[in-house]
C-alpha cells in the first residue's frame, strides 16, 4: 500500500488524460462512490457505425486512485466496439493501475469502470463483487 502513490499514478492524477466533457456526445453517464461521495461523469462519441468508441472523456472530482484509474482506462477505449467495452474485465482495470489495491480502495479504482458500464449499458451497473475482483485479480 505504501507504494500506492507511485509517480505513474500521481502523474495521471495531476494531469488526467481524456478529462472533461464531450459535447455533442452519443452516450453519457454519471455515478458516484458511496464510500466517499465522489462523483464521476463520462461522455462518449461513437464512430459512424455507432458500434465503436471514437472519443471519450470523464469529469468530476475524486481521489488520486479514481482519477488515475479513469485516466488510464479511458486511454484504452478508442476503437473498441461497445461489445468489447461491455466485456471488459474489472480485474484488468485494477491491474492496469500497476499498484496493489486493497478492499478499502477498490471502489475508487473501479468508479470509472462502473460509470463506463453505465454509459454503454444505459443503466446503473452493479459494483463488481469485491471477492471476484480481489481474489482472482493479478494484484492484491
Amino acid at each position, binding site marked *: 500500500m505504501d507504494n500506492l502513490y507511485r509517480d505513474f499514478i500521481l502523474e495521471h492524477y495531476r494531469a488526467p488524460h481524456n478529462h472533461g466533457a464531450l459535447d455533442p456526445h452519443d452516450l453519457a453517464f454519471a455515478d*458516484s462512490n458511496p*464510500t466517499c461521495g465522489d462523483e464521476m461523469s463520462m461522455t462518449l462519441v461513437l464512430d459512424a457505425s455507432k458500434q465503436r468508441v471514437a472519443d471519450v472523456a470523464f469529469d468530476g472530482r475524486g481521489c488520486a486512485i479514481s482519477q488515475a484509474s479513469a485516466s488510464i482506462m479511458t486511454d484504452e477505449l478508442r476503437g473498441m466496439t461497445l461489445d468489447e467495452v461491455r466485456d471488459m474485465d474489472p480485474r484488468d482495470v485494477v491491474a492496469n493501475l500497476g499498484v496493489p489495491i*486493497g*478492499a*478499502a480502495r477498490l*471502489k475508487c479504482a473501479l468508479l470509472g469502470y462502473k460509470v463506463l458500464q453505465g454509459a454503454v449499458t444505459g443503466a446503473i451497473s*452493479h459494483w463488481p463483487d*469485491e471477492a471476484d475482483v480481489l481474489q482472482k485479480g493479478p494484484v492484491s
Partner: protein
Amino acid sequence: MVTAHVQPGVLDGAAFRADFPVFDRPHRTGRPLSFLDSAASSQKPRVVIDAVADAYAHHYANVHRGIYELSEDATHRFEAARDALARFIGAPSAREVVFVRNATEAINLVAYSWGRTNLHAGDLILATEMEHHANLVPWQQLAAATGARIEYVAITDDGHLDLDDLRARLARGPRLLAVTHVSNALGTINPIVEITRMAHEAGALVLLDAAQSVPHMPVDVAALDVDFAVLSGHKMFGPSGIGALWGRRDLLDAMPPFMTGGSMITRVTLDGADWNEVPWKFEAGTPAIAEAAGLAAAIDYLEGIGMAKVRAHERFLFDQAWAALSDMPGIRFLGPDDSDEHAGVISFMVDGVHPHDVATILDGEGVAVRAGHHCAQPVMLRYDLPATTRASFSVYNDLDDIVRLTDAIRVTQRTFGTA
C-alpha cells in the same frame, strides 16, 4: 427405560460439555448442571467466546471500509462471516444474507418491507397454528396495517401440520405462507419440501422460520426451495445480538429498505436518498461486528461436528427420553411420536402439577428446563393447556441428562403426591 450404553454413531455428550465453560460452574445444588433448554438459547463453546474476544481485542474497528488496516481487517472478517453463513445454509450467494439481531427482526423486516409494499386490502396471508409469536404477530400487524386477511393452517391432534387444511387454504390464493421448519412448542419437523411445492403451485411465497432447524439438522435453503428463511445466532452456539434473513436475490432487490441511516445509502441530500445494494440496503447503522465473528466460529464448530451427526445424536436422545417418560405414570406428551418427524424438543405435562411448579422443582435438582407457553400461545389454546414443560437437547446432553430429568420428575410427583 434408559439404555446404559451409547449407540454407535452417536456423540459423546461429556466430551462436548468439556468445550462449554458453563458446565464448569457448579449449580447451587453442588451438582453439575443438566441443561435442557437449548431450544430457548444454546450455551456457547469456548471457541465462540474466544472468537468474540479476539475480534474485540485484535480486529476491531467499525466496518464498511475505513481506509486503514484495522478497519479493512474488521470489514473482511465481517463479510467472511456472511460468506460462512451463506455456505452453511446453502444460500446461492452471500449477497442474499442480511445480518439482523435475531429471527424476530428478520421476520419483521420482511413484514414491513416486502409486506407493506406488496400486500393490499383483501390479500391473504397464511401462517400456521404452530408458529412462534415471532412468526405470527408481525403478520397480524401487517394485516391490520394493509387490510390483508390472515388465516392459519390447522394442526392435528398429534401435532402435525394438517396438509389437507393447508391445501384448502392455498386454494384461496394467499400471497405468502409463513411456516416454521421445527415447532419450538411441539417439536414437530414440518415437511418443507412438500409444503413449498404446494405453496408455489398455488402462487404463494414461502417464508421459513428456520430458528429451530438450522442449529439442529442439515438445512439447505436452495434445496428446500423456500423464498425467505430466518434464523438466530444465539440458538446455534453463536453470540446473542446477531441473526440473519436469507432471501431470494430478486425479492430482496425489489424490496424497499426497512430501517434507514448510515451505510445503507449511496447518496443522501436534504431532498432524499438512494439505497445501497443488497444486503447492505437492509443493514442500517453499525452492525453486530464481533458477534459476526462469533457466529462464524459457531458455524465452524457445527461444521466440525457435522450437522447430520448433530441430528442423529439429538434424535437418539429424543427416542430415549420419549421411551423413559412413556414408562412413567402421569406424563402426557405433545407432538408427533415418530422421531422422523420430531426434533430434540419434548413438550410434556405432569398430571396434577402446573409446568411452572415442575420447572421450579427440577431446578432444585439442577435440571434446567423451560415452562410456559414457549411464545406459542395458540398452540397452548389448541390443546387447551395453560403451559407445558419443555426439555430440549443439544450435543452436550447425553443419557445422564435423561436419567436426571426422569428422577427429578419423580421428585416432583412425590412432592405433589400425584404419583
